[in-house]
């Protein structure tokens, strides 16, 4: 496949037939997905359905075995492509925060602009502090990650990604490692991002949040998008038997 594949202009990301296997285990088995600019897309599904791998593939942290990932119409799944220029345009937030424990919170946020964009140290720290203040963490700017609560750490991780001015944000179950009372503060940040028009693709177990915030919900099952549609349609009137069963399970567990 070449980079010049015809595509709809307002699509930010488009996946076509994305296939990924770890040894003999197929994790993504032909994913087709369209993410329009400014859209928020929720990926739901059981553990092991491929949500995280899908996000990691879009960020090129995992090489795709087959298929096409178009980012602004350019195929970034091409084997051998230098991933660094792509990744700096795509932000990613991880389930376990992955903050750098040897740096202060401000330095965590400033390191990307400093190293990758060549911003001066003082400017990067100043802008980092602004970003932290925006997310309500201005007072903890000099703290180290281990001195913060999980919710604060995750907000720092979001600030670290935003500091790179990404065009798209990938959120990989960012509230799964948090105590229930800390989930809200992180989700508030994501609501703010949606209001700012950020394009986001996120994997989640927070069904209520997925329903509230997303423009489209995709239900993954065994490496395929089994069903996709508006939140109301997926949560209110799921067509597929598997989707119904999955949603019933999470409802019974009190997560909806």
């Amino acid at each position, binding site marked *: 496949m070449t980079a010049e594949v015809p595509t709809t202009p307002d699509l930010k990301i488009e996946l076509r037939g994305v296939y990924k296997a770890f040894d003999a285990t197929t994790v993504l088995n032909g994913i087709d997905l369209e993410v329009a600019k400014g859209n928020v897309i929720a990926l739901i599904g059981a553990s092991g359905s491929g949500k995280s791998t899908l996000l990691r593939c879009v*960020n090129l942290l995992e090489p795709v075995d087959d298929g096409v990932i178009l980012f602004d119409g350019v195929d970034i799944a091409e084997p051998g492509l230098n991933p660094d220029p792509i990744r700096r345009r795509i932000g990613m937030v991880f389930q376990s925060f992955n903050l750098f424990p040897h740096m202060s919170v401000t330095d965590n946020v400033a390191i*990307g602009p400093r190293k990758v964009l060549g911003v001066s140290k003082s400017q990067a720290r100043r802008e980092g502090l602004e970003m932290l203040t925006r997310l309500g963490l201005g007072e903890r700017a000099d703290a180290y990650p281990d001195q913060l609560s999980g919710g604060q750490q995750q907000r720092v991780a979001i600030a670290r990604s935003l500091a*790179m001015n990404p065009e798209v944000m990938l959120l990989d179950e960012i509230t799964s490692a948090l105590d229930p009372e800390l989930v809200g503060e992180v989700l508030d940040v994501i609501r703010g991002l949606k209001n700012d028009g950020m394009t986001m693709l996120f994997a989640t177990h927070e069904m209520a949040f997925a329903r509230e915030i997303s423009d489209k919900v995709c239900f993954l099952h065994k490496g395929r998008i089994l069903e996709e549609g508006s939140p109301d349609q997926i949560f209110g009137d799921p067509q597929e038997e598997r989707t119904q069963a999955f949603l019933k399970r999470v409802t019974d567990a009190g997560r909806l």
Partner: protein
Amino acid sequence: MAPPLTRRAVYEQKQRRRAVVIATVSTTIALVAVVVLVPLTPGWEKVKRSFFDTDIFVESFPGLLEAFMLDLKILIVSTPLILIVALLIALARGARRPAMFPLKAFAVIYTDVLRGIPVILLVFLIGFGVPALGLSRELSNPVIWGTVTLVLSYSAYVSEVMRAGIDSVHESQRAAARSLGMTGQQTMSSVVLPQAFRRIVPPLMNSFVSLQKDVALVSLIGPVEILRQAGIDKAKTANFTPYVAAAVIFLALTIPFTRLADWALARQRRRTGATTIA
């Protein structure tokens, strides 16, 4: 409000007192045994004369201390070199690019060979072997080749410590750095190495203490450093006291560093949050 002394405080106070008593009694018994029993051995008088002669000790001490300066010089020059070479070897071993394969292979052979040969043997091989190539006078200085030997041997050990430190940094840290768009090199220098170094400080201190002692092996190929000076004094006085004096000088350097290493280890354990189990 808790009473001035909680149940546990009372118990622990009792335990502490008991421990102090037991330690005092057992130390006293051990000391008495040494002080009383050792002089009872048939050769004690002879040993005392040939190892613990005060006059000879005082006489040889200044010369030994001066000779020890050479040990210190070798130590000061070789330590940074060891760290640099070890880091390069560790990085070469972790290289993933095919173009780097020769370097990687070299690093594997380097650590395998140099760790496998006893330092003392390496000192002989390099110390006598290289000058035999007929180099210029300055380059034939055994101090240089002794230092080179220590750097070769220790960098092989230390590179393995560094490699373990690098491997101990979780993959998710790399993922976070790479997701920001940082290159592999930037990730290594800004994210992985700073964390790895913090973890390997205690084992590095251990190697450093060990290096302080092994500097004396350089004497085997000629330079008059402390061990050799002690040998000369021994021959002159027909007495072993200079060796004891040399040992005292070594201890004056190594004990503080050993304590420092212990302290670094303890601090690290506190930081990582591991608690002591009674």
